[in-house]
């Protein structure tokens, strides 16, 4: 699998000819460093991203008719990062992101530029600090598809403000937009979800669901009725919450290890 590793401003890579990238470093603390990735043929990419106090903009451009899977492992401490996806017609991006111990401000921007452009985004996040996440999804062509699923767990001092805004302007007929935002809140701080659907066209399908809470009594009762202790049942449910949608073995393993560490 292709791999790009970013640690502060040091970038290492091991990639095939299916993609290329360039780095535009920042010259002072106020400038934003840029990582520009071009995906030319269908492939998978691992992106390891660790940064403290630096500001990054990661631009991912996909060629027409290309299917790509991006597995992003992010570890930010007081960092700011912006992801921008440009997805042309008949192209699909699946963006899987796992992050832990985040204290960050983050923005994900996806532009669906041509018919059939599809963006699936799956965030799995264990938050121990203050975190702000903003998603902006633009359906800039008819028959485009977006599917945003955010599963976040807050522990210790974790406090998340999650805003997801989807825009479907007039004329973007046949577009499908879905948002599913869930926060399991195990910290004393108050988290927030702001789901927005800005839809100007009638001939579309758009839906969202948002939930902040803990495990349901019903789920705990079911597991405990099989002799599983409350603690073990909670661990199992947490693991399920963070592993849903993730089929990549490496990412599953990393999530399982973090779950074990955070939920002893």
């Amino acid at each position: 699998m292709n791999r790009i590793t970013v640690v502060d401003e040091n970038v290492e890579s091991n990639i095939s000819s299916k993609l290329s990238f360039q780095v535009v470093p920042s010259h002072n603390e106020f400038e934003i460093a840029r990582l520009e990735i071009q995906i030319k043929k269908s492939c998978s990419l691992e992106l390891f991203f660790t940064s403290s106090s630096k500001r990054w903009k990661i631009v991912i451009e996909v060629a027409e008719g290309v299917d790509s899977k991006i597995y992003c492992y992010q570890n930010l401490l007081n960092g700011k990062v912006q992801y921008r996806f440009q997805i042309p017609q008949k192209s699909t991006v699946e963006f899987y992101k796992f992050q832990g111990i985040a204290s960050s401000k983050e923005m994900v921007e996806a532009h669906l530029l041509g018919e059939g452009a599809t963006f699936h985004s799956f965030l799995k996040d264990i938050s121990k600090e203050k975190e702000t996440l903003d998603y902006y999804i633009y359906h800039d062509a008819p028959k485009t598809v977006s599917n945003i699923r955010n599963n976040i767990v807050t522990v210790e001092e974790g406090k998340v403000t999650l805003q997801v805004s989807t825009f479907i302007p007039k004329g973007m007929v046949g577009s499908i937009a879905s948002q599913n935002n869930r926060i399991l809140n195990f910290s004393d701080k108050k988290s927030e979800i702001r789901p927005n659907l800005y839809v100007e066209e009638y001939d579309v399908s758009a839906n969202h669901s948002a939930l902040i809470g803990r495990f349901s009594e019903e789920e705990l009762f079911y597991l405990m009725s099989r002799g599983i202790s409350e603690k073990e049942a909670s661990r199992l449910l947490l693991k399920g919450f963070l592993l849903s949608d993730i089929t990549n073995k490496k990412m599953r393993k990393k999530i399982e290890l973090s779950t074990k560490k955070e939920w002893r």
Partner: protein
Amino acid sequence: MHTLEIKDLTVTVEGKEILSSFTLTIKSGEIHAIMGPNGTGKSTLTKVIMGDPTYRVEKGTILFDGEDITKLSVDERAHLGLFLGMQSPIAIEGVSNADFLRTVVSSKEGKNFKLFPFIKELDQVIDQLEMDHDMIDRDVNQGFSGGERKKNEILQMYLLKPSMVLLDEIDSGLDVDSLRIVGENVTAYQKESQCGILLITHYRRLLEYIHPTHVHIMIDGKIVASGDFKLVDYVEKNGYEKMEKKEVISGTCIVKELARHE
């Protein structure tokens, strides 16, 4: 020999009385079927026995082998040998059936848990229940049909080997073939283990596979009539309407009616 005794149990939820001075004793080897109209407290009964914290026990006790279990947690009751096969088993996203079942059995067996015998038994029971082996890698009950969910409950029953089994409408949502498979497997387990069974059902068909030793009619949170399989025939023919009238609530009226039929 195990005994489950429910004595004078009154249960409420959000201030509403669901079970009213309910009394019933089930011993090993006995199969008790409870029938009754919708909303009469049958499912509540099974959940309360299992310790669902949604319900509040106002008075009465639940004894298992003479020990008061009314205040025990759900998992503690399961460890004593109680098992509840649910009417609507929930789906758990992201947790594979394999992971779940392994956790279930290892919670019961503790340090004695051995992976190889577990896998061997699991494979055997999956075949016995005519389930698809792929289900083991799927998320718990996620995308399962009604029949698959119910078979998954019976699979768990086999793996946990309970001594007292509560089955809440295990026949709902089953096609004729699945009903036969579930019915035959419950009966086989009961014969093998000599466990006690409390069976909630609306339909005679399940009782043809799992033949009850005792049949009870439950209305408004209490048992209004008890008997043998003839009571099932009576209900099938007459419904619950007559029993709901206060003057015929006593069991003797039912017995008289039955005598007249015979």
